[in-house]
């Protein structure tokens, strides 16, 4: 069994208005050294698989089919044996 931790983010070329709003709030709080805020989704799930390669393949497919919309989003994930 593996635990997958998946991050889905808007592609860098796409404006992230949520990130901009948060960045603006940070600036108003005096955090002027912080910038480039991008907001994404954090998804955790368990994968029943014989080995890491098979787990990776299943997560990859789930990301492409459902968890991310590759027209506008990129995804990445890590796998840990549990």
């Amino acid at each position, binding site marked *: 069994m593996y635990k997958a931790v998946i991050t889905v983010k*808007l592609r860098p070329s*796409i*404006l992230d*208005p*949520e990130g901009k*709003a948060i960045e603006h709030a940070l600036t108003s709080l005096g955090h002027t050294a912080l910038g480039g805020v991008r907001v994404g*989704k954090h998804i955790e799930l368990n994968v029943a698989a014989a080995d890491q390669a098979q787990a990776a393949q299943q997560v990859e497919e789930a990301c492409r089919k*459902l*968890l991310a*919309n590759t*027209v*506008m989003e990129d995804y990445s994930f890590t796998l840990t044996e549990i």
Partner: protein
Amino acid sequence: MSRLTFGVVVFPGSNCDHDAYHAVKHVLGQNAEFLWHKESDLKGADVIVLPGGFSYGDYLRCGAISRFSSIMKEVVRHAERGGHVIGICNGFQILTEAGLLPGALLRNESLHFVCRDVHLRVENSDTAFTRAFSSGQVMRIPVAHGEGNFYTDEDTLKQIEDAGQVIFRYVQADGTVHTDANPNGSRNNIAGIINRQGNVLGMMPHPERGMEDILGSTDGIGVFASLITTLTGAVPVQ
């Protein structure tokens, strides 16, 4: 006079389903059937309407979960057979997620939920959904959405523009394209597009909410009237 049957899909979270049903059944006198998302029978519908709302709570992304529902498998088959499909607001989001239309709908650039009347220019009146209009005609109907910012990459944008697939564009009352008229940041002020085959339309504004004088506009009638004329040859009495 033969009547069309409109199948209005109901997902958990749809909230413009009754508006669409009322528009086609009571305003235009056509047959209408609700199609529950777990069903796989289109009940003989000639035209499928994917209504506005928040299907499956818009969890994950707008339209991401609904595209895999039982009824959507049949809707995709219907579209592939050349059947007509119109997706309004959340329905438009579902059509892009299902791959029946290009692009994606991002969160509004302003981050605000926008709920107001907009002016739309009919960019292509040579389609099954727009022949009751003339090209360049300006209509006024409402928008109500938080994620209606139409996005595609440059290549796709050029392709759909060149192929005449952009059907409605947000404009000012005099018909001019201006960023001030764009409620959500959509690329090229795009409010509605059609697929290349011409049988699937997606639009963020709500024609079904602009069907009667009491609603402040009757400009939305043209979208449904165009379909009736295209598919039955009859001009609907309004």
